[in-house]
C-alpha cells in the first residue's frame, strides 16, 4: 500500500499549522540531539518566513504602512488561508488585497486594500508579456469614418485601477526607499484613476481623468472606439477624443488594433 501520499499530507499539514504536528513528528526519527518536533519546527519556520518574505517583496508599501510585526502576522494568516499553489511564486499573493479587506483589525486603514491592489498590479505589469506599441501611422491608414469601428487592445503590460483614496500618493510616500520623514496625506484629497504600465522594463503610473479612465476601461473590455467614446461622453460631455487618443498612442498604451464587428 502506498504510504508516500499520506506521509506527505501529514507533514505538509503540520508545516502549514493546519493539523497538530504530533502525527508528523511520529513519522520522524528522534534526532541525536534535537527532538523530532523541534526539527519539524525548523521547516515550519522556513515555510512561514520564506513565503512572508515573498509577500513583502511584492507588497513593500503595505508592509511599511502596517509595520513589520503586523505584516508578519497578516502574512502568516494569508499563507494558511491562501497557500501557494505552484512551484513558482509569480502568482502567490494575488488575493492579499481581498484578504486585507476582510481583516477587522485593519478597518482603521480603509485605503490599505487599494494600496495592495496597486502593488499587485505593479508586480503583474513588471512580469507581463512584451509587446510592440501600436504605431500611430497604422491607425492613420484607416479611413476616418472606419476608425470609430476599431477595437484598440491595451498592451499586456498595462493595468487600470481606480480608488476612492489618493493611493498613488500614499504608495509614493511608503514605497521602498521613500523618505522616512512623514508626508501628510489627507484622505479628503479624494480618489484617483490610474494606468499602470511598463516603459523600458520599469513600471510607470499615469494619472487618468474620469472620462479617460472610463474610455480606457471600455477599450480594455473590447468595446469599439465608438462605444468607448460614447461611454466617456456620458461622463464628461466635452470629452476630447483626439487629445486622449494621441496621448495614449504616444505613451504606447495600445498593442494592437482590430476591425470592429461583434466582439
Amino acid at each position, binding site marked *: 500500500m*502506498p*504510504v*508516500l*501520499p499520506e*506521509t*506527505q*499530507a501529514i*507533514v*505538509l499539514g503540520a*508545516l*502549514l499549522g493546519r493539523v497538530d504536528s504530533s502525527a508528523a513528528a*511520529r*513519522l*520522524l*526519527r528522534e*534526532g*541525536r*540531539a*534535537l*527532538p*523530532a518536533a*523541534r*526539527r*519539524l519546527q*525548523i*521547516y515550519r519556520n*522556513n*515555510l512561514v518566513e*520564506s*513565503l512572508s518574505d*515573498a509577500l513583502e517583496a511584492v507588497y513593500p508599501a503595505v508592509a511599511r504602512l502596517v509595520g513589520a510585526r503586523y505584516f508578519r502576522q497578516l502574512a502568516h494568516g494569508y499563507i494558511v488561508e491562501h*497557500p*501557494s*499553489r*505552484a*512551484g*513558482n*511564486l*509569480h502568482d*502567490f499573493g494575488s488575493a492579499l488585497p481581498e484578504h486585507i479587506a476582510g481583516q477587522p483589525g485593519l478597518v482603521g486603514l480603509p485605503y490599505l486594500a487599494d494600496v495592495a491592489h496597486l502593488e499587485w498590479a505593479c508586480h503583474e505589469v*513588471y*512580469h*507581463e*508579456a*512584451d*509587446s510592440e506599441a501600436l504605431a500611430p501611422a497604422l491607425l492613420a491608414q484607416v479611413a476616418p469614418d472606419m476608425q470609430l469601428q476599431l477595437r484598440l487592445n491595451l498592451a*499586456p*503590460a498595462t493595468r487600470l485601477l481606480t480608488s476612492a483614496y489618493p493611493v498613488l500618493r500614499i504608495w509614493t510616500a511608503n514605497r521602498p526607499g521613500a523618505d522616512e520623514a512623514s508626508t501628510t496625506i489627507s484622505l479628503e484629497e479624494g480618489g484617483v484613476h490610474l494606468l499602470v504600465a*511598463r516603459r523600458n*522594463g*520599469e513600471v510607470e503610473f499615469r494619472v487618468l481623468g474620469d472620462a479617460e479612465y472610463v474610455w480606457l476601461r471600455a477599450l480594455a473590455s473590447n468595446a469599439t472606439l465608438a462605444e468607448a467614446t460614447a461611454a466617456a461622453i456620458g461622463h464628461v460631455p466635452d470629452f476630447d477624443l483626439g487629445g486622449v487618443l494621441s496621448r495614449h498612442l504616444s505613451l504606447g498604451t495600445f498593442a494592437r488594433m482590430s476591425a470592429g464587428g461583434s466582439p
Partner: protein
Amino acid sequence: MHPISPRPTHDLPSVAGIGLRAEHCAEFITTMPAVGFIEVHSENYFGRGGLPLQILERARRDYPLSLHGVGLSIGSADPLGAPHLARLRALIDRFEPALISDHLCWSSIGGVYANDLLPLPYTTEALAHVVARVQRVQDALGRRILLENVSSYVEYRDSSMPEWTFLAEVAARSGCGLLLDVNNIHVSAHNHGFDPQAYLDAIPRGAVCEIHLAGFITRSFDDGKILIDTHSAPVADAVWALYAQALRRFGPTPTLIEWDADLPPLATLVGEAQHADRIAREVTEEQRDACPA
C-alpha cells in the same frame, strides 16, 4: 517517447560559476566578471516577459547557463505539474542551457506548495516513484536532468536505505545525472551523524555533472545544535576540504557558488568562485604528481 539527447555536459567548462541573483544583475551585465558560467533559478523566469528575461538574454550571450529548478516537486505523490513543465520547456527552448537541474525532494501535496525542499522518506516505494517521474520529466523536456541532494533536518522512521544509496539508485535507474551539493552533504552529515566521506564514496564516479557550494549557519538550542542551509554565508573551511575530496573522486567538475540571502557584493561571489578554481587546480596537480605520465 521522445529520444533524449543527453546534451553533453562538457558544454560547461570545469570551472566555477556563480548563481546570478536579481540584486546583482545590473552590475553583472555591466562588468561581465570572469566566471565559468551562470546559474539561475528557473522559476524566477516563469514570467511572460519584462526586464528579468531581457537581462538573462543579455547575460546568456556571453556565458554558458545552468537552469536550476526549485519547484518541480519531483518526489511529490501529486501528478507532475504540466504547466510547470511547459514553462520550463519554453525556457529551455529560448535559453538553451548547458544543464537543467532540480532537487531530490518534494515540495507539494494536494496541490498545495511549501515552496521548500522537503526530504523524502528513502523507501523502495519513493525510489520507484522518483525514478518513474525523472523519466517522465526527461521525456517532457527532451533533455537529461540533474538531481541535487538537499540539506535536511529530519529523517523518516520509514527510510530503509541511506540517502546516498537512494541518490545513486535514482541516477542508475533513471539515467539522470547528479548535482552534488557538497555543503548539503556536510550539513546533513552533521545533523544526522553520518560520515560525509562515506556519502561521497557511495556516489558513482560518472554520475556527477555539477557540484554546488554554499554557506550555512549554526543554530544552537539547550539540547543541541543543528546546521541550517541558508545560502547566506561564505563556504565553510570544512566544506572546502570536502570539496577537494569530491574532486579527488569525481575529477574536474563544473562548480557553482550559491548565495541567496544576505547577499555580499558581486566581487565576493566571484572571489569564492576563484577560490574553488584554485582548489580544483591543486587537486589536479596533486593527482598528476601522484601518477606521473
